[in-house]
């Protein structure tokens, strides 16, 4: 590593150019900030909305209920967030002190290590942390005076808690955004629902991107018969209306969060495949590819180390739109009743309660989850579009 080298000597990298162009739109930057806020909500959800207090004194002894009740998935999310933050800081440090010629190699090493840590950590967490259920009613303990000095979370409700006495209440002082049909606090379910939405978005798009890249790369590089057959397959996938396909699959398979992510990922890869295939067609004839082939490099090296970094731009742009789309599909599925099963919170599911069984219009169950879905989808669409504008015209001119 070369320390203390003047960054000015290195000029601006491709990523820096894209970021500069992207940052010109202050409006989009605000929405990027919204996305970050959403991530924070999702990461710290158990600390923001929980019916257990942070700390409570029972019989003179201090207890920490929230922390003791954190599940494996909570810890996994925290782990992933910490690793992602560290990785981001490392990227910034790379820009300042790593020579550009080795920078991408260093970056790939860092990313591989980060992903490895997260995966191993998640597996270990799920193995070792038991499924606890703390059903103690801390609030009644405080009310009856058995416990003192309780510090509750800002939204002192749990998403699984039902309280039929307060069902279908409009926003009031106890429940800032009202309650749903079984008495759960809407704000709490919205906050926890962000986890579902974001995770579906990212995992589904991750799956579809990987499938799309692999298929697109192989088809684009091979051409000829392989391409012909492969494009028939892609056309078949495109010919089936995606939403119909999704609900067909949902009809036959059990409902679970992972299934939904998988299904969305398996049905939306065609766009990425087409983009990558088109780029690879163009790249195939370029000299550096011919050089790699003539050196006898293995196919996977040519495809993924040499050609792919040049073809990845449309995939990244499409990924942002894909996340918006996946969030929308998940919300639509939950709205129709095909998504995650209650008590797992989902924005679409809350939305579906907006018109009660008696035909009453419960505006707070319509407005707030709808706004959440709308803002999130809008944010990702905006980021995607600004990213596309940043990559497309300007940089194409300079190349």
């Amino acid at each position, binding site marked *: 590593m070369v320390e203390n080298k003047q960054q000015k000597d290195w000029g601006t990298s491709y990523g820096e150019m894209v970021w500069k162009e992207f940052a010109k739109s202050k409006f989009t930057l605000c929405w990027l900030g919204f996305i970050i806020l959403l991530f924070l909500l999702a990461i710290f959800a158990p600390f923001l909305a929980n019916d257990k207090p942070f700390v409570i004194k029972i019989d003179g002894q201090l207890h920490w209920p929230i922390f003791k009740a954190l599940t494996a998935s909570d810890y996994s999310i925290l782990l992933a967030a910490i690793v992602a933050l560290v990785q981001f800081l490392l990227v910034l440090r790379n820009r300042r002190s790593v020579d550009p010629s080795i920078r991408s190699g260093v970056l790939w090493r860092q990313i591989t290590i980060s992903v490895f840590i997260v995966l191993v950590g998640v597996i270990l967490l799920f193995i070792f942390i038991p499924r606890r259920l703390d059903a103690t009613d801390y609030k009644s303990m405080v009310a009856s005076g058995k416990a003192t000095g309780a510090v509750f979370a800002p939204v002192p409700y749990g998403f699984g808690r039902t309280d039929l006495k307060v069902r279908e209440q409009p926003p009031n002082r106890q429940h800032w955004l009202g309650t749903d049909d079984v008495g759960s606090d809407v704000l709490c379910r919205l906050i926890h629902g962000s986890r579902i939405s974001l995770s579906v978005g990212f995992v589904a798009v991750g799956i579809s991107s990987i499938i799309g890249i692999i298929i697109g790369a192989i088809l684009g590089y091979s051409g000829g018969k392989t391409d012909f057959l492969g494009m028939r397959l892609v056309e078949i996938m495109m*010919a089936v209306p995606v*939403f119909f396909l999704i609900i067909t699959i949902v009809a036959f398979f059990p409902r679970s969060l992972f299934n939904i992510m998988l299904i969305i990922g398996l049905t939306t890869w065609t766009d990425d495949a087409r983009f990558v295939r088109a780029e690879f067609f163009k790249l195939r004839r370029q000299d550096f590819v011919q050089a790699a082939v003539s050196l006898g490099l293995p196919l996977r090296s040519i495809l993924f180390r040499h050609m792919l970094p040049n073809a990845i731009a449309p995939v990244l742009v499409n990924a942002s739109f894909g996340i918006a789309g996946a969030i929308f599909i998940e*919300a639509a599925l939950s709205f129709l009743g095909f998504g995650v099963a209650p008590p797992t919170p989902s924005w*679409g599911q809350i939305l579906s309660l907006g*018109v009660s069984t008696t035909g009453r*219009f419960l505006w707070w169950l319509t407005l707030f989850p709808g706004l959440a879905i709308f803002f999130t989808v809008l944010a990702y669409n905006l980021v995607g579009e600004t990213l596309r504008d940043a990559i497309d015209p300007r940089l194409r001119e300079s190349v």
Partner: protein
Amino acid sequence: MIPTLLGITIVVFAISRMAPGDPVALSMGPGGMMDAQRAADVRAARMKLYGLDKPVYVQYAIWLGRVARLDFADSIKHHRPVIDLIKERLPVTLTLNLISFVIIYAVSIPMGILSAVGRKKFLDRTGSVMLLMLWSLPSMWVGQMLIGYLCGPPLNWFSPAGLSSNEAEQFPFFQWLADRLWHLVLPVFCLTYAGLAYLTKQVRAGMLDNLRADYVRTARAKGLSNWTVIFHHAFRNSVIPIITILATLLPAMFGGSVIIERIFSVSGMGLLAFEAVTTRDYNVVMGVATIAGVLNLFGLLMADIAYAMVDPRISFESAV
């Protein structure tokens, strides 16, 4: 096209067969009352009845043969042939989608052209963002909000459900038509706005690209008027991507139908699919999926043919 058609059927069939759970065990129910030998016999008989004792590809061939004759077996819930249910419900969905289609294309194209041609910097950006916002609105939210605010008291402008009022059967024709149209306004709106926003953006982007093209400069150098250049030269080239968008718009609208029909209680194919999935009516699900796929393919074929007609660089054979 034929291979794609077969492919659709394979996909639908594969999903139904890959599903976990044993349809025979399901139909047999809890077997506590039979002894093991009798249970095995009944099971074998049932499997023979459903054709499940044959290898998978034979099952597929049998199913395919029946599908070709539009025989999707009977609906488990309604006890009627699936194909009859589809025949009843399909026209509604098609009407809805067709109307939306026409509106989308009729409005988006002029809007897109105008916004590309009249270029004020500020209007550019805000217009683009507004269209994006329109596109990002979730349809179920819009539908439900519209029902909530426009259909109930105090406004009561529209009816929240169905395509006709209860007494519609007795109306004279024009009144019936007016009643129909009145009921159609909200569902069509919900089905249309997103596609409208999307297509306007695409037309605008396409026009902007084409207006910068070299052949537009040549056309101007020949002394042609501005409108001739815009419509005769730039727009004519923009038509090509607009047609390809048909390919993405159709399946999106089929999917949107499911949500809209559910919200507004419109008895179309989308609602049929929704009910079938909810009640695990497998035959209906498979039938609807196949028909939807075939219709979609038909639409794509139309788009391909239109594409070949419009772009002289594409030969007719390569389209079909």
